[in-house]
């Protein structure tokens, strides 16, 4: 009778197009976001995540339109993140058709934003995205993992494990843990990081960054995460959502 492990395709959207790079650089065009979302829905995706990576305000306005168009045609939950700075930003996204909203940099600068959003819309709306890396020499944290901003280009000195726990305490309904070292490399999830965060977080945890082969999802699932998220392997057709689910099911995990 237990809840199924979720498989979530993530679409990085820039000015109405899906893009994907390696470690947030060298972006390639990967198609129309609404079309891709529909395809993933048909393949059995349990949720769809849009990450707005637009640099311009025009690009952001286009993202709202994209979310609305997707919500018209896709009947699984939609999470939208990227550049969310305020309760008003969250409200605009929810009105456009998002079910959950991801916050990242703004919550690091102003952690009370998490509580503000949770009070207004409920904890289930707030996904705190943590872009974390293994500490480079000279910036040690207790766990050995550090929170980054700006797509992994800037360190914050903040302990990623402690921050994930704090975000949950402040009212996050879910933590999306993205490994910057692994992002886009298709070399596998950072299992050690996932395990460290799972140990201290009692809200749903989503594993992100590094998916390449079906086996990677099985290894990540074994850490006790509630969902596994990937982008490039799905966009470029390396894997289908169904193949990932088959592998998870074969390994004994409950999937839809």
């Amino acid at each position: 009778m237990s809840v199924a492990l979720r498989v979530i395709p993530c679409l990085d959207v820039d000015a109405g197009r899906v893009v994907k790079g390696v470690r947030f650089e060298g972006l390639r065009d990967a198609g129309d976001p609404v079309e891709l979302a529909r395809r993933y829905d048909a393949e059995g995706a349990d949720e769809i995540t849009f990450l707005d990576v637009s640099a311009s305000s025009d690009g952001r306005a286009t993202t709202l339109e994209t979310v609305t168009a997707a919500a018209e045609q896709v009947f699984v939950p939609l999470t939208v993140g990227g550049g969310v700075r305020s309760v008003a930003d969250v409200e605009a996204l929810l009105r456009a058709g998002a079910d959950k909203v991801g916050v990242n940099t703004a919550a690091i600068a102003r952690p009370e934003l998490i509580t503000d959003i949770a009070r207004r819309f409920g904890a289930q709306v707030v996904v705190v995205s943590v872009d974390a890396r293994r500490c480079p020499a000279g910036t040690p944290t207790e766990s050995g993992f550090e929170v980054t901003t700006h797509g992994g280009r800037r360190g914050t000195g903040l302990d990623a494990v402690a921050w994930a726990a704090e975000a949950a305490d402040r009212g996050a309904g879910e933590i999306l843990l993205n490994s910057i070292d692994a992002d886009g490399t298709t070399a596998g999830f950072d299992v050690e990081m996932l395990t460290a965060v799972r140990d201290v977080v009692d809200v749903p945890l989503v594993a992100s960054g590094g998916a390449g082969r079906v086996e990677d999802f099985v290894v990540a699932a074994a850490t006790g995460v509630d969902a596994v998220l990937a982008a490039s392997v799905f966009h470029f057709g390396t894997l289908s959502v169904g193949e990932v689910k088959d592998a998870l099911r074969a390994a004994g995990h409950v999937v839809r």
Partner: protein
Amino acid sequence: MPVETPGPRPSVVVLDYGSGNTHSAVRALERAGADVTLTSSPRAVAAADGLVVPGVGAFRAVMEQLLAVRGDQLIERRLAGGRPVLGICVGLQILFTEGVEHGERTDGLGQWPGSVDRLDAPIVPHMGWSPVRVPEGSVLFEGVEHERFYFVHSYGVQTDPAAALAAAGETPLSPPLVTWAEHGSPFVAAVENGPLSATQFHPEKSGDAGARLLRNWVQAL
């Protein structure tokens, strides 16, 4: 895509009282064959074949917003006339006696006995696709008894409203038909009770299974 039944489409009002994402509920009901309006106009609410009460967020906040548009009276009046109402998520919760959040009690609409309390499970919110235990005679779940539905909530009703009514010596004409799900412990996933139905999960976000459930409700209007 399913073939929609010919003939006039039943009219459905999605109650617009400022609670969360109503976009998907409207679209999903349209897809289920209804002619949908998003409004809190008392006249429109009274005239519709079906009323959907969505709800996202905290019990107290949702109750306050609902009372602000006199949603309690609108719902009461429809039920008195045997006119169908469907509550979704917190729209189910507020139909019970009360909600308790952070030790604070808020009165619900009291259509069914029971308290909405925090779920007792290692991971909360309960977020994702769970199976349901459907009783004999369910109309809502016809054809989707063995499917999973999308839940996202931290609170739920963990007692049986039908048993509570019986214990109180009340013998309603049609006792509530309860569908259960489990997260840590069993909780009420849906109730069907004459004109009043409700689901704790989001049928509008539950893919094809949710679409079938909404179609079952719309076709019975």
